[in-house]
């Protein structure tokens, strides 16, 4: 038969001519167990994977930060890339931390000439603040990065994704159901998105398990190659046993006040939704909320975000119905993701992107966040220290602040001699118009754009004052700090969650 005679055949999409048996891949007849051992995806070395990926000068590589300060993957991969003589790469990590200081040499020798990340700490951050790089660091929130990746504006050529378990076909996960000795990071939320959009995706694991490694965080359909190494990270740095409740009385006071604010706000009703930031006071708020939930007999429909053992405890007690987990903050959270059916792993776009068809941050009643500094216009800095040096991460701060109906920032009024409430923050990470309430150990301030909220809090007998008064109070105790001296050179750019420039970080002046 002449297939060209089929009516309209040339208008049919996905039409590849006539079937010929010899053009099709020959089917395998060996036992599946033998077949998976011979999987062509499994490569003998990172070097081989880099070669196969076609990585060239000027391309963009990506990494996730689920291994926190225990990560070996970034340094291992960039060392290998340097040995192979590839230069001028953009390193687009979901975040970077203290353990990534060896990147300093790879910046100096020209392997990395541009970095995108959510955060930066330690020696690398200090060197950047002193002007190490010509190209400023681009800081994006978790939602802003997700949006940039899914619109392909930030195009990832090769993603190198560490995973505590993976099968020979690339089904990867943040825990291991086959071997208890494996390291465990819980959710792979940030890696999931990179796997979804990168041209080439390489999973690096230290535990190759039998197919199928289900349930999986990253599906084999997105994975090109798998490399097995001795160690993907230091388990102790990847995860601490449990996030401990603070014993600091000042933080406990702040947490108790924050819980009272939420109770009085009108958002603490049955089926509410919430997210807790990772600061001491914001975490401790969970404990006080738990007591109030039991007392009032109300349940939380879902808890979002970075998940801790406190949230898991409330889930297992039936107080929190569902957990949406983009990042597990401790081992209890990671094990809950592994064992609890209604503890759901989500990716960074689902969590916080502003361009997709629905992000969970927009379904939040309230979020409790922390701040290094907050100014009289409620702008928040979570990025630069009081000396102007980079030592923080934007994370999901601006995303959740914009999404939640009630955004509460918790912070001590003073940290040593440094006032938290100031005239103008060093670096704006989250704009003040998205912050509703500031809770300090010395009073509560409500954003003037929420007068109805202020009335509710006053009616509940909370210690409500104005942010200007909090600032004056701080200055009365410690004095008025002199502003930090910077040079003109820009070393970092803060992108708001819609990827517009909200602020810049300049080189520090040291003399």
């Amino acid at each position, binding site marked *: 038969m002449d297939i060209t005679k089929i009516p309209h055949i040339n208008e049919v999409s996905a039409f590849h001519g006539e079937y010929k048996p010899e053009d099709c891949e020959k089917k395998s007849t060996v036992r599946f167990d033998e077949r998976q051992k011979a999987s062509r995806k499994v490569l003998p070395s990172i070097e081989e994977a880099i070669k196969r990926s076609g990585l060239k000068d000027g391309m963009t590589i990506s990494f996730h930060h689920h291994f926190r300060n225990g990560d070996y993957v970034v340094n291992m991969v960039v060392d290998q890339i340097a040995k192979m003589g590839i230069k001028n790469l953009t390193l687009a990590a979901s975040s970077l931390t203290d353990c990534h200081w060896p990147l300093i040499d790879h910046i100096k020798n020209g392997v990395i000439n541009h970095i995108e990340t959510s955060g930066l700490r330690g020696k690398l951050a200090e060197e950047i603040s002193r002007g190490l790089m010509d190209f400023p660091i681009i800081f994006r929130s978790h939602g802003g990065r997700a949006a940039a990746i899914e619109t392909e504006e930030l195009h990832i050529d090769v993603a190198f994704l560490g995973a505590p378990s993976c099968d020979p076909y690339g089904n990867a996960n943040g825990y291991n159901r086959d071997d208890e000795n494996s390291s465990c990071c819980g959710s792979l939320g940030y890696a999931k998105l990179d796997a979804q959009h990168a041209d080439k995706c390489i999973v690096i694991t230290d535990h190759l398990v039998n197919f199928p490694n289900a349930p999986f965080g990253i599906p084999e359909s997105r994975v090109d190659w798998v490399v097995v190494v001795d160690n993907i990270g230091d388990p102790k740095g990847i995860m601490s046993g449990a996030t401990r409740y603070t014993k600091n009385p000042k933080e406990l006071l702040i947490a108790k006040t924050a819980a009272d604010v939420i109770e009085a706000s009108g958002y603490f009703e049955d089926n509410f939704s919430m997210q807790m930031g990772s600061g001491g006071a914001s975490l401790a708020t969970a404990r006080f909320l738990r007591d109030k939930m039991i007392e009032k007999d109300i349940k939380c429909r879902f808890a979002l975000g970075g998940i801790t053992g406190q949230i898991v405890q409330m889930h297992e007690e039936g107080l929190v119905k569902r957990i949406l987990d983009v990042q597990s903050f401790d081992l209890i959270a990671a094990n809950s993701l592994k064992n609890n059916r209604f503890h759901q792993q989500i990716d960074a776009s689902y969590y916080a992107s502003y361009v997709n068809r629905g992000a969970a941050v927009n379904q939040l009643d309230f979020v409790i966040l922390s701040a290094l500094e907050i100014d009289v216009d409620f702008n928040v800095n979570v990025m630069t220290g009081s*000396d102007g040096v980079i030592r923080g991460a934007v994370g999901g701060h601006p995303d959740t602040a914009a999404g939640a109906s009630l955004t509460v920032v918790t912070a001590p009024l003073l940290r040593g*001699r440094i006032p938290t409430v100031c005239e103008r923050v060093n670096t704006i990470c989250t704009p003040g118009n998205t912050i509703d309430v500031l809770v300090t150990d010395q009073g509560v301030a409500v954003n003037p754009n929420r007068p109805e909220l202020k009335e509710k809090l006053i009616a509940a007998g909370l210690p409500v004052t104005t942010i200007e008064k909090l600032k004056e109070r701080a200055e009365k105790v410690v004095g008025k700090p002199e502003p930090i001296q910077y040079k003109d050179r820009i070393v970092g750019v803060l992108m708001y969650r819609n990827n517009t420039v909200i602020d810049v970080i300049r080189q520090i002046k040291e003399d």
Partner: protein
Amino acid sequence: MNIITTGVAGTMESSDIIVTVEPKAGEGIDLTLESDVMQQFGKQIEKVIRDTLAELGVNSACVSAVDKGALDCTVAARTMAAAYRAAESTDYVFNEVKKK
């Protein structure tokens, strides 16, 4: 007040300052200061130390101070204690430290 030996007061705890006062040949106060909040409060801390010594009538001394974010009242109190010890004087008059 004459400085005749080495006097130390304070600790390295946060929100404290450790002040060391030593004899010096000739007039004047030689001051070295290290502080966690040098950029924001360095000048103010130096002013408090110098004013406190002037009030005590200390005209000649080598002073070194390591600050961990102490408030002005702490800076003044530690400076006074170090000066009294360095002068081997027990002639204290206890009263409130006045705001500088």
